[in-house]
């Protein structure tokens, strides 16, 4: 008799269900925190017109929880539940690609009021402006993949 946890197909299903749950919780957090409202994002980024600090609280709350959990997970376990190893970005150097990419992203973020996660959630809710944004975002990612060195 084999325990259900060792059955590879059951493990596979469980791993996908947990990943799906992560996405659903992540999206719910974005919605609760109004990150799917571009007026809230633009009101946070533009500090000159009646600053709206909410997005700062969202990032602060997320960073606090993740910082504690990340340390705890790394200290406690040698490997994740469904993979052989943790995939933590190892690089510590700064380069032009990183800073140029971040700068371009910031311009697009301040312009449209959407970043990738909230854009996808808002598009999934049927919002027309988010659907346009996401279509262009996917095109932008594809262009970078085709033209950039990876």
């Amino acid at each position, binding site marked *: 008799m084999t325990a259900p946890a060792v059955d590879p197909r059951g493990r596979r299903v469980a791993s996908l269900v947990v*990943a799906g749950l992560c996405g659903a919780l992540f999206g719910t*957090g974005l919605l*609760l925190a109004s990150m799917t409202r571009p007026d809230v994002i633009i009101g946070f980024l533009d500090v000159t017109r009646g600053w709206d600090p909410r997005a700062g609280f969202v990032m602060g709350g997320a960073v606090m929880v993740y910082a504690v959990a990340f340390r705890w997970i790394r200290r406690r376990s040698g490997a994740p539940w469904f993979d052989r190893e943790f995939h933590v970005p190892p690089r510590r150097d700064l380069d032009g690609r990183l800073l140029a990419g971040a700068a371009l992203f910031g311009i697009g973020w*301040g312009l449209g009021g959407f970043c*990738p996660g909230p854009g996808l959630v808002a598009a999934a809710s049927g919002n027309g402006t988010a659907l*346009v944004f996401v279509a262009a975002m996917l095109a932008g990612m594809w262009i970078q993949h085709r033209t950039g060195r990876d």
Partner: protein
Amino acid sequence: MPQTWFLALAGGGLIGAAAALLFAAHGRIAGVSGIVGALLPPRERDPGWRVAFLIGLIAAGAVASVVAPDAVGSSPRSLGALVMAGLLVGYGTRLGGGCTSGHGVCGVARLSVRSIAAVATFLLTGAITAWVVGP
């Protein structure tokens, strides 16, 4: 206003918890631009967890359109500006290796030097852009 601040903190906490669960389960950084970008086209032997995460994210938006339609707002920008914004966000996040979730939440919480530099950069250019373009 205190209530919206609480919702912001609680929503943020939920985002952090979801990202932590993904790390515990799959050992992956919950960076949305990276998760999407690596599927265009699929570059890994097993992209299953990425697809599942995105289905969950999309399901949250679909459910919200029924139970909480006010949680989603429209961008005040014109069609052309939205296309430009999307192109910049898509191209920039792939070039810079992350967005508000991967660099902003996971990277800052890990005290990654690259992520902290990226966040400082995109907050600055985002603030300048939002100020120049207006509400």
